[in-house]
C-alpha cells in the first residue's frame, strides 16, 4: 500500500524521485525543502522517517510500471489522475500532521507511559517494556518521576480523548499495551497513517492548550525544533540589523551556511527583515523582473545582475509564497 501513499505526493509538475524520498524521511536541505515547497508537499516533511530507500524505490518502480507515473528529464509526473483519487481512498494522508509535532518519538513515549501507568496502577513494577529504545525509556522515567499519579494521568488522558473524534481515540487506544492488555491494532500502512492523523489531532489540542492537559503536554514536550539552533541565532542577528557577512563572522560559520539557514527559514515561513538582505536598488530591480513566477534562477540573475544566487532564490521563495512586498511595482 506504500504505492497508494506515494502516488499522492506527485502531480502534473515534474518532481524528483530522490527529493520526495528525502522530504518524507526528513532531510532538511534547501534544495529538498525548496522543491517540496514548489510541489506543495512541504507539509509532509518527516512524515515517514523510517521509510527504507529500497522500499521507496521499489514502490516508485511499481508505479512507473503500472503507468501512473512517468519519467521525464526533470523528474516524475503523474499520468493517471484517477489512480491518484483511488490512492487517496486507500490511504488518507494525515492532514492534521505538522513536522514540528515530533510524532515518531511522541508515539513511543505515549505508548510506554500508558503501559507504565497501567502496570503500576495495577501494582506491577516489573514488566517487559513496550518500547525498547533506551532514550525513550529514560525520558519516560524522568517524566514519571516528576510526580505522575496513575489515576490523575488516567483521568487527564480520558478527558483528552473525549475531546478527540471517536475514531481518533479508537485508533490510538488500539495501539496501547497495558496491564494484561494488548490492543487490537494492525500493522498496515493505512492504520499507521490513521494513527499519525489521530496523534496529530491530539498534539494539536495539547499545543493549543497546554494548561488543560499538563501531564500529557509534558510527555509531548512542546513543539520540536526541527532545525539547528544556529538557524535561530542567524535569524535573530539579522533581525538585530547585522549583515550576512557580519553574522558569519560572529558565529564563525561560512557565508554559504548563513545563506542556507536563511533560505530554509524563509521556506518554512519565517518573517525575515528584507531591508537587510536587499539593498534598495536591488529590491527595485527585483520588482521590475518581467515574470515574477520565473523558476529558472539564471534567467532572473541576468535580469538583476547586481544580485546573487541567495537573493534570487529568496526572491523566488517569497514570490511563490505571496510574501514578496509588491508595493513598489508600478
Amino acid at each position: 500500500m506504500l504505492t497508494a501513499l506515494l502516488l499522492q505526493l506527485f502531480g502534473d509538475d515534474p518532481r524528483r524521485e530522490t527529493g520526495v524520498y528525502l522530504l518524507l524521511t526528513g532531510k532538511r536541505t534547501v534544495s529538498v525543502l525548496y522543491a517540496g515547497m514548489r510541489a506543495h508537499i512541504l507539509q509532509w516533511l518527516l512524515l515517514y522517517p523510517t521509510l527504507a530507500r529500497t522500499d521507496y524505490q521499489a514502490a516508485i518502480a511499481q508505479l512507473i510500471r503500472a503507468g501512473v507515473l512517468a519519467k521525464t528529464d526533470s523528474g516524475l509526473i503523474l499520468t493517471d489522475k484517477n489512480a491518484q483519487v483511488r490512492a487517496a481512498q486507500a490511504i488518507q494522508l494525515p492532514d492534521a500532521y505538522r513536522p514540528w509535532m515530533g510524532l515518531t518519538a511522541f508515539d513511543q513515549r505515549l505508548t510506554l507511559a500508558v503501559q507504565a501507568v497501567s502496570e503500576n496502577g495495577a501494582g506491577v513494577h516489573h514488566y517487559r517494556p513496550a518500547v525498547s529504545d533506551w532514550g525513550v525509556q529514560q525520558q519516560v522515567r524522568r517524566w514519571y518521576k516528576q510526580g505522575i499519579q496513575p489515576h490523575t494521568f488516567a483521568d487527564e488522558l480520558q478527558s483528552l480523548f473525549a475531546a478527540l473524534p471517536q475514531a481518533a481515540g479508537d485508533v490510538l487506544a488500539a495501539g496501547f499495551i497495558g496491564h494484561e492488555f494488548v490492543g487490537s491494532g494492525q500493522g498496515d500502512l493505512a492504520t499507521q497513517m490513521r494513527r499519525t492523523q489521530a496523534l496529530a489531532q491530539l498534539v494539536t489540542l495539547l499545543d493549543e492548550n497546554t494548561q488543560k492537559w499538563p501531564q500529557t503536554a509534558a510527555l509531548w514536550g512542546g513543539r520540536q525544533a526541527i532545525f539547528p539552533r544556529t538557524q535561530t541565532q542567524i535569524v535573530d542577528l539579522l533581525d538585530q540589523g547585522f549583515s550576512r557577512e557580519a553574522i558569519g563572522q560572529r558565529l564563525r560559520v561560512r557565508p554559504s551556511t548563513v545563506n542556507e539557514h536563511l533560505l530554509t527559514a524563509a521556506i518554512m515561513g519565517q518573517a525575515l527583515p528584507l531591508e537587510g538582505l536587499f539593498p534598495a536598488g536591488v529590491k527595485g530591480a527585483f520588482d521590475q523582473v518581467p515574470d515574477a513566477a520565473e523558476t529558472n534562477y539564471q534567467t532572473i540573475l541576468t535580469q538583476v545582475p547586481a544580485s546573487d544566487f541567495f537573493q534570487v532564490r529568496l526572491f523566488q521563495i517569497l514570490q511563490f509564497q505571496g510574501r514578496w512586498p509588491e508595493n513598489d511595482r508600478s
Partner: protein
Amino acid sequence: MIDLDAMLQQKFGFSAFRPGQRELIEATLRGQDALGILPTGSGKTLCYQLPGRLQPGLVVVVEPLLALMADQVARLQARGERRVVALGSDLSPDEARFVKMHLADYRFLFISPEMLLRGDVQALLRQLTISLFVVDEAHCISQWGPDFRPAYLQLGNVIHALKPRSVLALTATAPNRVQQDIVNGLGLRQPFAFIASVDRPNIFMGVMQVADAQSKHTDLLAVTQAVQGPKILYFDRRQQAEEVAAQLQEKGQYAAFYHAGMTASARELVARQFMVDQVDVICATSAFGMGIDKPDVRLVCYTYLPESLEAFTQGIGRAGRDGAQSAALLLLAPADMARASQFASTLPDAKMIKTIFAHPELYTKMNDPQIDLIEAYIQSGFSEAETLAKLTARLAEKQASLQAMVGFVNAPGCKRAALVAHFDDLVPTHTDLCCGELTPAVIAQLAPATAVKSQAPQAWQAVFKQIFTFAN
C-alpha cells in the same frame, strides 16, 4: 557453594535447569571458558543472566543484531533488572556518551561487535572488572557459515585485551568445523563444551514440493486452516506476507503480518497479540522470531527456500518449545528453487564496493543487506581489496549453504537424518511422525493448543476501562 537451584527458583521462577544450563553456569562461575551449543528457546540466556546476578563485575554480551540486544534487555527488565543497557548504533551521540560515562553502574552491557572494536569503548571497559564476556550467536565468527560477520574475527583480540574472568560462547547451531572456528577465533582456553543435539524429535519435519505456485497457495491456506493453534508462516517478500494475512482474515482466521517495513510500535503490538493468543497466524518475513518465546507454536511453515540449513533450523525451532507434538513445513514450488539460487549468486561487485568505500558515511542505514555487509567490513577495518577478496570467497560459501539446503530438500529417505547429519549430529531413527508430507493424518496427531482469546475492544472508552482498572 552457592545453591544454584534455590537461585533459579528465587530470581527466575524456574523449578529446574534445562539440559546444559547448570554445567555451563558452573563452568563460568569457576572461571573456565565455555562453549554452549543450545537450540534457540532452550534457555541460552539464563547461562549468563544467572552468573551475572551472582558475581560482582560487568557481564559484557556481544550481540550481532540490534533486535537481539533490545530483546535481551527487555527480558532482563521484565525480571526487574534495571542495571542493564545496550550500547548499539541506535543511540544518539548524547545517549551513547551518557552510557559510556556510566558503564560502571551497569551489571549487563549488550554491545555490537563493531562498537566493541572502538578504541574509546575498549579503553573504558579496560578500567572495569569484567566477570563474564559472552559472545552470543558465536557462529557469526565462522567464514564457513552463512551468518559470517567480519567484526567477530576481531573479538579474540578484544577478549585478550579486556581479560574477562571467563568467556562464554553461545550459539544454536554449529557443525564441527564451526565449533573449531569459535574456539580458535575467540581464543577460548580449554573450554568446557556442552553441545546439544539439533534434533527436535517433537517437530514433524514436513517437506512438500508441489507442481506450481497456484497449488502451493491452495495448500498453504488449507494447511494453515487445518492446523489448530499458533502458527508462523514465513515469506521472502513482504507483500506476500501482507496478502496472505489478508486472505486468511477473509477466511475467518485471526491472522496478522509482520515485517521490517512496519514501525517499531506496530511490530511490538503484533508480536504481543501473537504472544497472548489474540492472533494465531503470523505471516512474516525472517524479521519475525527474535524474542518470540512462545511455547505452543504448532506449525512453522517456510514458503520459500531458506538461504541455509542454519536459518531453516533456527526458524522451525520456534515450533513446539513446550515439547508437545508440532510440525514444520517447507512448502515449495519449482520456481522457488530458481529464485533462491538467484539470491545466492548476488553479491556486491567491485564498483559498488569502491563507491561505498569512497563515502561510507553516505550509505549507512540503507536497509540493504549487501550494502550493510560492505559497511560492516569497513567498520571492522578491512581494506577495499580485502573486502573484495572476502566477498568473492563468500559467494562460494553462500552457494554451498544453498546447495546444502537443496540437498536436504531432495534427500531421499529421512529428512530428519539429512538435517542432523549436516550438523555432525547423531542420526535418529525414522518413525511415522518423523518426516515427509504434512498429511491430514499427521495434522490430526499434533498436540492441542490454546484457542484464540477474545479480542481487545474497539472503542477507546472500553480500552481505558481495561487498562486503567484503578481509575473510576
